[in-house]
């Protein structure tokens, strides 16, 4: 194909422009996070010296140390529970035939587009009634339920795409359905699992509304909730606010940079229903 030099120039120009637009607010946060705490400037002037102390301040004064512990705990539990439950269910949906299986599967798929606003109100009253508000369970269980929609959908696609002959061969060799799953399908499915893990981790880590409604005491606050409260209290303290925002974004961004293909693949397939 013959393309002129100018055409190439324009194309890369456009791409760079959009990359710049995508990065500007992020760069703004980073530069503010490293700026002098006393400067009131929210602008983008590069800080004269790098003030790593802001992070330490956010950690101690903003209590982000405690919030991070809560976030890690909830995220790990939700990822683990979703992975195990979704794999078991998807294994049945993907490889076995039984009455009502399609119907049950569509119930799970329903959860893919269901907004939280459709369940959050009674969920709060239920959990309060069961004494689960202000506990980690109050965050873990509902978020696991929400992640299961994607988890079941995603893992079923994987199980469906494994060759049937493989399952038959395993059965002829005398493997039970459970050992077929643990010995053959799970080791083969590492890419599918890592996508599921990173996506659910990101969703749980970034979740805000559920934490806002279910948690009112400081001890169980997750980092996004912490940031919202921090903003309410120290809205003029831009440097600390930016440092806290950076601390929140950092774990997800690091995983994203390492596994960006998995992220993009998972997030784009989430809506691709049959």
């Amino acid at each position, binding site marked *: 194909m013959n393309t002129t030099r100018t055409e190439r120039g324009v194309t890369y120009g456009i791409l760079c422009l959009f990359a710049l637009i995508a990065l500007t607010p992020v760069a703004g946060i980073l530069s503010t996070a490293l700026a002098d705490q006393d400067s009131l400037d929210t602008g983008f002037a590069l800080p004269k010296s790098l003030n790593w102390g802001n992070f330490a301040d956010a950690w101690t004064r903003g209590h982000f140390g405690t919030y991070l512990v809560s976030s890690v705990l909830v995220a790990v539990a939700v990822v683990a529970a979703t992975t195990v439950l979704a794999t078991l*269910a998807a294994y049945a949906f993907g490889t076995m035939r039984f009455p009502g299986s399609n119907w049950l599967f569509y119930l799970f798929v329903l959860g893919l587009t269901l907004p939280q*606003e459709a369940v959050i109100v009674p969920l709060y009253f239920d959990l309060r009634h069961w004494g689960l508000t202000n506990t980690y369970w109050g965050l873990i269980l509902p978020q696991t*339920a929400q992640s299961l929609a994607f988890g079941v959908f995603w893992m079923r696609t994987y199980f469906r795409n494994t060759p049937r002959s493989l399952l038959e061969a395993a059965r002829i060799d005398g493997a039970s359905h459970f050992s077929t799953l643990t010995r053959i399908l799970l080791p083969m499915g590492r890419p599918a699992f890592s996508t599921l893990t990173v996506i659910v981790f990101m969703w749980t880590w970034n979740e805000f509304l559920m934490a806002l409604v279910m948690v009112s005491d400081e001890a169980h606050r997750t980092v996004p909730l912490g940031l919202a409260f921090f903003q309410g209290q120290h809205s003029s303290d831009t440097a600390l606010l930016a440092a806290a925002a950076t601390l929140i974004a950092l774990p997800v961004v690091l995983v994203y940079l390492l596994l960006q293909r998995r992220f993009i693949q998972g997030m784009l397939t989430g809506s691709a229903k049959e």
Partner: protein
Amino acid sequence: MSTGAATGTDPGATVEAEASARRGPTALRRFAARYRRQAPGEPRAVGYLYILPAMAVFGVFLLWPLGQTAWLSLLHWDGLTRATWAGADNYRHLLTDPELRAPFAHAAVLLLFYAVLPVAIGLLLTAALTRFRIRGMTFFRTVLFLPQVLAMVVVGVAWRAVLAPDGLLNDTLRTLGMGGLTRSWLGDHTWALPAVGSIGTWVETGLCLVLFLSGAQRIPRELYEAARIDGAGPVREFFTVTLPGLRAEIAVALTLTLVAALRNFDLIYITTSGGPGNATSVPAYEVYRRAFETGEVGSASAMGITLTAVIFALTMVVTRLVEGRRR
């Protein structure tokens, strides 16, 4: 009739009962046969056992509350005292009360910014970017997709700094000599909604672009060459080759972005809290505010159910549009 069949005084009923008794097992057998048509040793009912744990959690913490929301939407309840029956009142108010209609109007505006604009920009850029192989695509894809992985709370904090009265946007305008245009973007009655919408455009454009670029790479080169031989310019080429080739990607992009636009709670909470006045209140935020701040649980539930219905309807329309044309 059941007495007749039991005592045997009605001959017609007896015959019928016998027939149904005969039919019963046959139907059952046929039903069973359908699922027996499996290789020997293939697992059957054990499938339910595998689904059970997931279904239990999903049912208790998602499906059951969904039903409860539907029920609550039919009540007047402040969350504390006894609820009273409301019937369709809460839904009727959604249609008649301007204060309840406004959030949906705002959501419609946000749909433009979150879904229509990003898809349009993504398509335009894709048309410009698919004319040759791009080097460094991994880098561009990573950067363009980055806004998607950031917590909305973080996005909100970052953009508040940009849109603040002395933030980057106003600074830039002043440097460009357009100081007259500066304002407190998020505090302005007219501009707060478009300002929040622009944040949405920023978040979603990268997603659309990444989707379309990867889709465009699957369009066979020969189609472009054929179009060019037929004398098609860049515009014709776009409408006859690129656009039809990206149909599936457009559907995915629209679905993801419109769901994001309507589920928009975090960003509103962090940037404007629905204000100034109710200039940026959206259904998702209104559900929270009514249920947990002003004690109008029934009204909040009705809004949540309506929002869900709107999301389902829109995603269905998008899917239909795509499938309809494919046939």
